[in-house]
């Protein structure tokens, strides 16, 4: 029996800071007159937690909690996601008349759940992290209580999310019964020893379905468009990056460490899921006339690209996936920042029609949107190109040249709906009354950060690439 003492908490320091911050934000919200104080406090907490992440490497609680390069990289994605989301939300929540301080503490707790998922060395910790993340985001999705679409999104997200975590639990139960443990690396050892059996394959399928739900892989993506459309836009931005990246982090660790020896048996399924996801995401995105819904299908398609990293496997594949998710976080949050900017009192600014002639009325907003649309398509010199390029390189390197070709074809299809937004902005005349921008200092800062990073990584990617490579290796 391991001795319990305070030194076991050292690798958890960033998580402890985040948990304390969440509680503090909740209490500050009770007394603070301006709700933005809670938001600023959460950003400060993230800065402190981020500082301690590189100093916290190690295992704790008998391997249940693992803080390594892999988890650290993902934690930085979550921190960036939190900071940008808070910056996007401050003005937006006032416009939506839902300026409650709980919002920020829910965002902090959700991020804490993601951090636990990325660091989970044990399926029990994985489950707890996942539920902490999911329960907070269900509430966030329904945050605009007086809006029927928001609460409908919350109900759908809640029902399908709870269903998928029940599937995850049954998968965990089968694995536990077959290997006698819930520790991911011990499961890996037991699987090598015992080989594949029908129940084990069943449990792999259950876990794959559960992770498929969380990362919105087709055919488990049905919830994503409705939830992304109905949820408050700032929450959509948050959910499309953080929980997806966290699910990929856990997906990668469980499948490559736990079931790595069976990879020949499950990559086939994953290849089918990946192609199906790219097809569904890119083709259904074409017929959307609501930008949030279009970005939802686009987010489904991007999950299809990112999962290629797990198919390739090894340090190479993981590094490509992490790199891709990092870049995806910036470009997607940036695109949603523009969508939020078009939302003002009385005008929803979600219809594609609202983008007609934006270059004439608001050239700055149109130019920024152009960068994000190019990046999401994967056109150089934006970051999106770098992400896709290294993903394809890893896929081809692993001997799946045909899969890379399929992916390129679907990327070409995706150009149609991303560039349609650009076409609307630059080549059409404004119709009806012009949209008014609701630009606030914090939103401007978020746009500045995302645009700069997307372009910077596009022209000078090597620091990010070596960071991802180091973290995955």
């Amino acid at each position, binding site marked *: 029996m391991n001795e*319990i003492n305070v030194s076991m908490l050292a690798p958890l320091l960033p998580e402890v800071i985040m948990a304390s911050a969440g509680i503090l934000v909740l209490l500050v919200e009770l007394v603070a007159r301006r709700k933005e104080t809670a938001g600023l406090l959460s950003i400060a907490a993230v800065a402190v937690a981020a500082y301690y992440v590189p100093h916290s490497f190690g295992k704790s609680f008998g391997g249940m909690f693992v803080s390594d390069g892999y988890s650290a990289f993902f934690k930085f994605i979550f921190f960036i996601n939190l900071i940008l989301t808070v910056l996007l939300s401050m003005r937006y929540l006032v416009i939506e008349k839902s300026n409650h301080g709980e919002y920020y503490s829910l965002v902090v707790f959700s991020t804490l759940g993601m951090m636990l998922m990325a660091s989970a060395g044990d399926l029990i910790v994985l489950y707890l992290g996942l539920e902490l993340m999911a329960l907070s985001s269900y509430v966030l999705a329904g945050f605009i209580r007086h809006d029927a679409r928001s609460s409908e999104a919350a109900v759908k997200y809640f029902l399908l999310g709870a269903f998928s975590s029940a599937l995850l639990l049954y998968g965990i139960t089968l694995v536990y019964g077959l290997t006698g443990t819930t520790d991911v690396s011990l499961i890996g050892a037991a699987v090598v020893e015992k080989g594949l059996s029908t129940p084990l394959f069943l449990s792999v399928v259950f876990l794959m379905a559960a992770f498929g739900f969380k990362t919105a892989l087709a055919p488990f993506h049905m919830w994503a468009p409705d939830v992304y459309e109905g949820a408050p836009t700032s929450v959509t931005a948050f959910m499309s990056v953080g929980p997806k990246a966290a699910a990929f982090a856990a997906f990668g660790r469980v499948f490559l460490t736990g079931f790595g020896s069976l990879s020949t048996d499950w990559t086939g399924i994953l290849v089918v899921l990946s192609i199906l996801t790219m097809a569904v995401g890119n083709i259904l995105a074409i017929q959307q006339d609501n930008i949030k819904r279009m970005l939802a299908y686009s987010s489904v398609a991007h999950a299809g690209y990112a999962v290629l990293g797990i198919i390739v496997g090894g340090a190479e594949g993981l590094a490509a996936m992490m790199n891709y998710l990092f870049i995806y976080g910036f470009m997607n949050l940036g695109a949603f920042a523009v969508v939020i900017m078009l939302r003002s009192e009385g005008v929803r600014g979600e219809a594609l029609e609202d983008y007609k002639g934006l270059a004439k009325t608001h050239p700055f907003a149109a130019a920024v949107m152009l960068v994000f649309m190019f990046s999401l398509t994967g056109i150089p010199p934006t970051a999106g190109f770098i992400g896709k390029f290294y993903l394809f390189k890893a896929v081809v390197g692993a001997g799946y040249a045909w899969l890379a070709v399929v992916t390129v074809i679907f990327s070409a299809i995706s150009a149609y709906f991303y560039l349609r937004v650009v076409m609307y902005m630059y080549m059409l005349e404004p119709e009806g009354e012009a949209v008014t921008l609701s630009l606030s200092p914090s939103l401007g800062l978020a746009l500045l950060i995302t645009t700069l990073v997307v372009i910077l990584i596009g022209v000078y990617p090597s620091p990010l690439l070596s960071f991802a490579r180091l973290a995955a290796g």
Partner: protein
Amino acid sequence: MPGSYLPSSYLPVLIFLVISLVFGLGALVMGGMFRLRRPYAEKLRPYESGVTPVGEPRQRFSVRFYVIAMLFVVFDVEVIFLYPWAVVFDRIGLFAFIEMVIFIFILLVGYVYAWRKEAFVWE
């Protein structure tokens, strides 16, 4: 011991359950066999000698009850973590005690929060 799934120490409970079932059902069946049956309209009313019921019995009740029930469920279930801790309390010492204090503190924050948000106020 592995392989044994008959929880034999619970056998008295099973016997008790069977006896109480037999007794309860037996009384009903016996009563039904021997009693006289002369029904008439007045006798079959829900309250034979009370006030005549007015309105629908399935009333909607205040949504406030749900809020209280939700809060109860959350705080109630957390107690399951206190039981295993209490059983081994004398063996795992001070560290676990502090951990439990932190756990209860977090619950307390939730309680204070609910209080300040007037979740317990019955308008």
